[in-house]
């Protein structure tokens, strides 16, 4: 079997709903709205979509067939690795079009998380079922380990202990991301400044996370349309964004942090070398990076596991403007999950496409040619994509 050849697949269309806190639309309506926009952006009729990769808890292939008027669905899949799902969905879609089982594959993500589902709401409303549900219910929930930020804190506190990493890194990421959100009219926090004093004064929720280290909860959806690159060029719409490589990776004991032999190990550490090898590029060639940022800390850890720097060094790596617009590696140019919206990271993929089309407005990275997108989900699953124009 031959492996994926760089640039076989392309992202031909992107679509986003408005990102809000409060909506009267259902999760499915949001998904359809974003999906229809992605089709229109790609210049294809939604009825011609012939592959579906669904990365949200809502929506079945039948829902999409009905909502989009699909006439001949040849392939569908659901991906359930939390925030790594959209980029892993892109990964699968690229291989689907490369293999020929489908030609126009829609990858969607979205939820009305703010309006209908609050994470950690175990006493009321629909409960999020995590991997290793028996472990959670028997060994963690009874001890008050219930919310994602608590699991992340186990990783973070051990990281600080093993590496003596600077505590400054998380503040750098929070402030940098908010400044980028101010350049994006689609960001929820576009008008809300954050000073260093605001960051320092924000309440400690779970050591080491302050409120301003934690992502937003929002309502919204985003989608992308993946085709073969030659088909995208022939279609003559917007310039295609080429997928040089994608990869997915999973940590050891993916449903359990406590007994993971190396709790700092993450799926992205396995996926990144695979993607870099396929794409045939070095990290220092990248013009920007959209890194999954449900917490400030997990951005730092991904940079380390991808190989931008050694463990414990990410706080120094992100210092001195390196990750700001105009710096060496502008990071989360849209405002990320921290300051734009929580669309499970599909907004990161959409932003990378905008950057590579030169459509990123005030946040445009000058001369953007090569970009990196990551996803992080559940207890350390990872996905990565390397895109270029």
């Amino acid at each position: 079997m031959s492996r994926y050849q760089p640039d076989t697949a392309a992202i031909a269309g992107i679509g986003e709903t408005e990102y809000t806190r409060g909506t009267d639309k259902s999760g499915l309506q949001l998904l359809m709205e974003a999906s229809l926009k992605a089709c229109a952006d790609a210049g294809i009729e939604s009825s011609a979509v012939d592959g579906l990769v669904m990365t949200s808890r809502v929506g079945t292939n039948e829902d999409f067939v009905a909502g989009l008027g699909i006439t001949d669905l040849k392939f569908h899949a659901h991906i359930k690795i939390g925030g790594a799902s959209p980029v892993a969905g892109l990964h699968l879609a690229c291989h689907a079009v490369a293999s020929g089982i489908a030609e126009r594959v829609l990858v969607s993500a979205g939820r009305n998380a703010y309006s209908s589902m609050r994470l950690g709401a175990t006493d009321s409303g629909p409960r999020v079922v995590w991997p290793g549900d028996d472990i959670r219910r028997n060994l963690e929930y009874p001890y008050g380990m219930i919310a994602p930020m608590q699991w992340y804190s186990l990783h973070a506190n051990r990281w600080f202990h093993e590496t003596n990493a600077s505590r400054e890194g998380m503040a750098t990421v929070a402030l940098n991301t908010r400044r980028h959100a101010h350049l994006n009219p689609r960001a929820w926090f576009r008008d809300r400044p954050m000073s260093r004093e605001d960051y320092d004064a924000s309440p400690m929720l779970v050591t080491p996370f302050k409120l301003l280290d934690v992502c937003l909860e929002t309502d919204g959806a985003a989608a992308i349309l993946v085709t073969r690159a030659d088909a995208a060029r022939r279609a003559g719409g917007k310039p295609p964004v080429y997928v040089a490589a994608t990869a997915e990776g999973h940590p050891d004991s993916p449903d359990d942090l406590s007994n993971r032999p190396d709790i700092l190990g993450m799926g992205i550490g396995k996926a990144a070398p695979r993607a870099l090898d396929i794409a045939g590029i070095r990290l220092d060639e990248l013009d920007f990076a959209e890194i999954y940022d449900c917490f400030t800390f997990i951005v730092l850890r991904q940079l380390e596991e991808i190989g931008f720097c050694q463990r414990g060094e990410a706080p120094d790596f992100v210092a001195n403007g390196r990750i700001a617009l105009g710096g060496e590696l502008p990071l989360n140019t849209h405002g990320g999950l921290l300051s734009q919206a929580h669309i499970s990271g599909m907004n990161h993929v959409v932003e990378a496409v905008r950057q590579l089309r030169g459509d990123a407005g005030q946040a445009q990275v000058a001369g953007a040619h090569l970009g990196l997108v990551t996803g992080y989900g559940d207890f350390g699953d990872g996905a990565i994509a390397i895109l270029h124009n």
Partner: protein
Amino acid sequence: MGNPVQRPLPDIEDPLYQAHFQGLKDQQLRVQQCDACGQLQWPPRDLCKQCHGDRFHWPVMPDQAVVYTYSVVYRAPHPWFKEHLPYAIVVAELENGLRLLGNAFGVDVEKIQCGVRVKAHFQHDEDSGVCFLRWVPKQ
């Protein structure tokens, strides 16, 4: 005054967990060991991660451990835990490398750091009939 909100409870009858929770009631830390190859594992699994065996016994572990990692919680993720704030959750590593998660209710959370030596305490809850693992720093 009773707390109207119930603590999230484990299923102490779950076949994979029953021996562990009975152990806590008996003031013992019991974990899963493969009958065939002797592999110790935690959390319990349907199959042995070493040899894929599916028969197990539940030996008692020493009650001394070292904090591998921890979480200090200032905002309750569930209403029952509000009255215990701030509280620590400790993942403590036994000498054999297995790690068990427990609370450290009623402990000065500033004292919880990686590397701190802890001892298992067993906190029986009359209402639910469940005994919970509590890690307490050694003086």
